[in-house]
């Protein structure tokens, strides 16, 4: 049984080699505003660290930037919120199941939190019910969370409704946390926006959108450079026939291959993306999207960066 967390860690180590080592940890460490005032020690500056944490006097003496470290008075709690309805079992923009992308994203953030010494919990579910797993530390626990997400998402699951999970979090969690929401291309309606505003007031909220498979034509050009080989495979050959997971309705690819349909679909999608973006920006929620599990690492990095800047 291959471990889901192993896959996450290998993906992260590849990314860490590409970027500066430890950069992600620095980015993650800056997410929280809350810090104790008890000085612990100094460590070398890592890109992504807050500039205001630099101990300028010590740096001047030492010759290179040093960061003041404080004793973490309490453990932060990271709550992974995701959708395990049947929408997430459908294919993503890159061609793999959306739940694979979601598991990768959840794993990356969960593992960063684990390295930072935080506890990680999970809220997942579908239209019918939401369930939660308590926040605990440890890789085994993280693996259990990822497995819960992976196993409960299937084509036979009830329909998706991320709004249900968000209200569940709002109802059941009083403690201040970092919420990491992974969902597909939902467009928040007024009710969900209200819930999000309520959550945003209490928690830090990060949002990652898993891109849906393109239903008409090839993917929009220049969206994610890492996805080019997958998109190339998609455009070659005849358009694939698909079916809707909601009602098993057949969607013949040939019908969606005409220029007018592609143009209309692209316009509608742009509108949906803009609507989602504007709602989340209005609420001050950092948002990023990923089309495949290759996109997850840069996406999470960008997300943390955006969140830090947005503060």
């Amino acid at each position, binding site marked *: 049984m291959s471990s889901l967390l192993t896959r996450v860690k290998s993906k992260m180590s590849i990314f860490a080699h590409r970027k500066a080592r430890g950069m992600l940890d620095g980015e993650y460490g800056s997410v929280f505003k809350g810090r104790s005032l008890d000085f612990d020690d100094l460590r070398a500056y890592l890109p992504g660290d807050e500039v205001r944490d630099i101990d300028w006097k010590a740096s001047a003496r030492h010759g290179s930037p040093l960061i003041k470290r404080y004793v973490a008075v309490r453990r932060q709690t990271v709550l992974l919120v995701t959708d395990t309805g*049947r*929408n*997430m*079992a*459908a*294919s993503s923009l890159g061609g793999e199941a*959306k739940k694979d992308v979601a598991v990768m994203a959840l794993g990356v953030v969960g593992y960063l939190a684990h390295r930072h010494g935080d506890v990680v919990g999970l809220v997942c579910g579908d239209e019918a019910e939401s369930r939660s797993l308590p926040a605990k530390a440890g890789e085994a626990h993280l693996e259990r969370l990822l497995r819960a997400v992976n196993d409960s998402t299937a*084509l036979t699951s009830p329909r*998706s409704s991320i709004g249900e999970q968000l209200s569940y979090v709002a109802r059941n969690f009083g403690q201040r946390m970092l919420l990491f929401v992974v969902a*597909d*291309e939902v467009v928040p309606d007024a009710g969900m926006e209200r819930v999000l505003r309520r959550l945003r007031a209490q928690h830090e909220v990060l949002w990652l959108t898993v891109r*849906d*498979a393109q*239903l*008409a034509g090839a993917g929009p050009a220049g969206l994610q450079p890492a996805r080019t080989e997958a998109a190339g495979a998609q455009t070659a050959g005849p358009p*694939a*026939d*698909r*079916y*809707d*997971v*909601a*009602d*098993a*309705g*057949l*969607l*013949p690819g*040939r*019908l*969606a291959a*005409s220029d*007018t*349909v592609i*143009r*209309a*679909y692209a316009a*509608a*999608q742009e509108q*949906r993306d803009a609507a989602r973006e504007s709602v989340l920006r209005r609420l001050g929620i950092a948002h990023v999207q990923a089309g495949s599990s290759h996109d997850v690492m840069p996406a999470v990095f960008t997300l943390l960066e955006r969140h830090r800047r947005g503060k």
Partner: protein
Amino acid sequence: MELIFWWMIPAALLLGAGTYWLARKREQGRQAALRPVAHGHRLTELPEYQAAVRRHRRWLTVAAIAGGVLMAAALVAAARPAGRSTISPEQRNRDIILCLDASGSMSSADAAVVEVFARLAQGFDGERLGLTVFDSSAVQVFPLTDDYDFVQEQLQAAREAFDGAPGSAGFLDGTWNGAGSSLIGDGLASCVQGFPATDGGGADGSGGSEERSRSVVLATDNFVSGEPIFTLTEAAALARKKDVRVYALNPGDFDYGTDPDQPGAELRAAAEGTGGAYYPLDSPDAVADIIRKVQSTEATAFTAAPKAVVSDRAEIPLGIALVSGLVLAGATWRLRS
């Protein structure tokens, strides 16, 4: 209208049902190969997509109807629709040899007789005609044939020869080889020999020769000068033996009284002895009448038995199949593009 291979239809229906069942089974298996996607309504609710679906559906309907019609029409054509009708074909299976005495005593009437023969040949359809000319010896100008253009051509040459047109004298070459002149008995015997063999599986091998009536139209005045190998009576007996009727035309009957040794009476006896007839004529214009009479008696003697004819009537289903096939090709092209 009836179907010759009527069992084709239930067989094809069974086959079609089996194919449909198999296709349905495979269709269900194919669902697993499709890619599942979420938010399908975001595509299906687009008016542009709905228009494309309507268009697609319209062409699918056209293709389905055309395909169904094509298969039904092909099936009907394969079952061989046939029309059964009863016909009684008019059979004119007569062989007629024109036997012309070219002796000097006939020269005044020959041209007119040939002209009548020519007119006769124009009205024929299905009969075979031959022409033999004799004087002291017989020459077959042309054997039995139904090539009427050729017959006309030869009769035209004969007319020119009898009219004494320049350059036509060669037509009668070979009729003076024997001793004497106007050897009527020899001439008739030669004409009678000009028919194909009468015995079963005869010379022509078709076996059809027995069913054809044989007639000789013998135009002569029966003035013999010389010693024939066959006398007229012997030749008539040969004709009777071969079942050939002799119709004698005598353009110059100069008999007096009832003496049976006179040339006219002798000829009459010979002709009537074979089942034919004798016509003493003073005017060559009457020849047409006689020939018509000969023809009419012969025609009533040969009426064919009614016959059932079965003919394939596949043109309508095949035409429908062609049209629906073209429609199907067009619709398929639209669906593919």
